[in-house]
């Protein structure tokens, strides 16, 4: 009985799936990290400056998904790291007043004014100053650049490609080697 269960588990561990964004493997994903209104304002004001505009995909529903995904990500960090990152958002919200002599905090400034301050931070010769943007940028971009609209705008179709390759491997396992047309080529010069 135990042996049979083990073999079933082993089969399950190795079997490819459908490359779903939200797989149903019985592992519940935590709810967003709880934050108060001031923290939410600080995060959203940093998002407003960091995220691209122009022809980059942006809409309120997308921004909401990015915001929510960031808070979920915080749940999987150590408590001290998550709290540290949230403190940095607060610091960035107030830094225009405390360090740049502006009359208002970040959320009250225009996006261009905020961007100018961030550019100063990014190009600071002092490492601790530059590090202020490291975690917020990683957190916001890792969420934004993983959204379907953004993938589409970049011409990045990972699921389709993954499913094709799963099918190819299955074919190789069942029928032997791959064909020449299974090779990956995009540029003739590199053939």
């Amino acid at each position: 009985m135990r042996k049979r269960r083990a073999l079933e588990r082993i089969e399950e561990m190795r079997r490819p799936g459908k490359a779903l964004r939200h797989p149903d493997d019985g592992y519940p994903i935590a709810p967003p990290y709880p934050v108060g209104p001031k923290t939410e304002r600080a995060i959203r004001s940093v998002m407003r400056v960091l995220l691209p505009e122009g022809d980059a995909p942006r809409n309120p529903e997308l921004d909401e998904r990015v915001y929510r995904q960031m808070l979920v990500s915080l749940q999987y960090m150590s408590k001290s790291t998550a709290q540290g990152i949230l403190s940095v958002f607060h610091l960035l919200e107030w830094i225009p007043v405390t360090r740049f002599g502006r009359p208002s905090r970040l959320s009250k400034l225009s996006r261009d004014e905020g961007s100018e301050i961030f550019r100063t931070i990014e190009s600071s010769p002092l490492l601790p100053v530059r590090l202020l943007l490291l975690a917020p940028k990683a957190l916001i971009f890792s969420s934004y650049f993983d959204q379907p609209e953004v993938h589409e705008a970049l011409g990045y179709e990972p699921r389709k490609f993954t499913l094709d390759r799963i099918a190819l491997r299955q074919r190789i396992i069942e029928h032997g080697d791959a064909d020449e047309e299974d090779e990956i080529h995009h540029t003739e010069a590199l053939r």
Partner: protein
Amino acid sequence: MIIYKQKDSAREREFSAEVVVVGTGAGGAVAGALLAEAGFDVIFVEEGGYHPTSSFSPYLAESQPRLYRDNGTTVIMGNPPIPFAEGRCVGGSTVINGGMAWRPISEVLDTWENELGYEMGEKGLDPYFTEVEETIHAKKQAPYSIGDDNRIMKKGAEKLGWEYLDNVRAQDRCVGANSCIVGCPTGAKQSTLVSYIPRAFEAGARCLTELRVDELIIEGGRCRGVIGRGVNPATRQDEERVIVRGRIVILAAGAIQTPNILLQYRSLRKNKNLGGNFLCHPNAKVVSRFPYDVKGWQGVSQGGQIREFRDEGIVLAENFIPPAVMAAQIHGHGDEVWETMRHYNRLIACGVLVEDTRPGRVTRSFGRPNARYNITKIDHERFLKGVELLARLHFEMGAEKVYLPFSNLTSIESPDQLPLIKKTQRSRSSLELFTVHMMGTARMGLSRRDSVVNLDGELWDLPGCFVADASLFPTAVGTNPQVTIMALAAKVAERIAGKRAAFLATA
């Protein structure tokens, strides 16, 4: 039951086995599987969750919380600080690594043999390497798995007359899905999830998941088990205390977490080697933009390495990354980053891997590990040279822009600007680094004066407690460490199995 989730272990609260293995990555899975096959009753304790191949997808934002420690936000403090990544799931870092399967270079194994004897040399370790390489199907890639970014690296190296080696990888019919860092969705990469863990289960092993080990049970001067806390995956809150008793405990939680568990005991802290000798093969990313589509996300990540500069401690490799990681590494913000990222299909990403010249240290504060590491002047010079070499190669292949890992020189647009690298890079703090190769913090040795564990992997100062992960390395290995971790874990398992009667008699 074979795999226990947090809610399952919460019901039982107490487990016992002959061997308790903490961690299911390259070290723990190998040691546990071989001991289970040798007839031991083995139980794994894994902090992360169980995610089968069918659950893997190319989406980073959803995969990272499930598979990475602290969602990938772990950092080694120093000048410069170095973010690092390690797995937190059944299969550990083998689920999220590139699957490289290189043995250490001969010079490293010669040094080990000279310092520690024949058994740690090329010939002494050969049987363990062979066993591991057969199990994980260590071999080169088939042509249908190679993408254009690898071709650029290879052709560029050929043009410049540099030695390029096709990588040996842990893979069985890899088709180049390029999802290594979020779990291989095809099942081709031979992580321990699909290689050693199944062997262990077949031999009767069990696995407690979502259970973080906080303490060791020490009785009568011997290690007799571990105490952990369940971590509720739905709330991320610590839950019940779970006791796992065993006659032998094998720590395989990685070169940062393993010393962190041990450093809480004063009797073990007396050995100043514990947590010392921290090595991490730091690496720097170089991203280049080409005037045509490369689609680096199609085809295997790291099809080969440039080893031409190996004697100078520099290895160059292609290593493509999803947009969610790439964007965070591009200098700037807002529209500036978008301007680069909109050409994502024309970008290729590569890394300069530098061999350590001075170790750092892992300490423990408030129950958490604190890793410290500073690169040296020599390391810094190696990075500058490595970045320049990669940029030169890419320009040679027609790149129109190269993005550099320096905060004060973020990109260059022609080979004429290469001298700017040396001219502008005076400070180590402007370098942006990353690592996934942490090693050496509970090194093997011949005496407690210069090591933490003996050549069997057992702690000098705590009988019954073994180490089987990258902490064991006496020195840096100069290449990707997975196979060396596995081989040393196999050696530890063989030593334990050879003394089975003696260990069981200590009950």
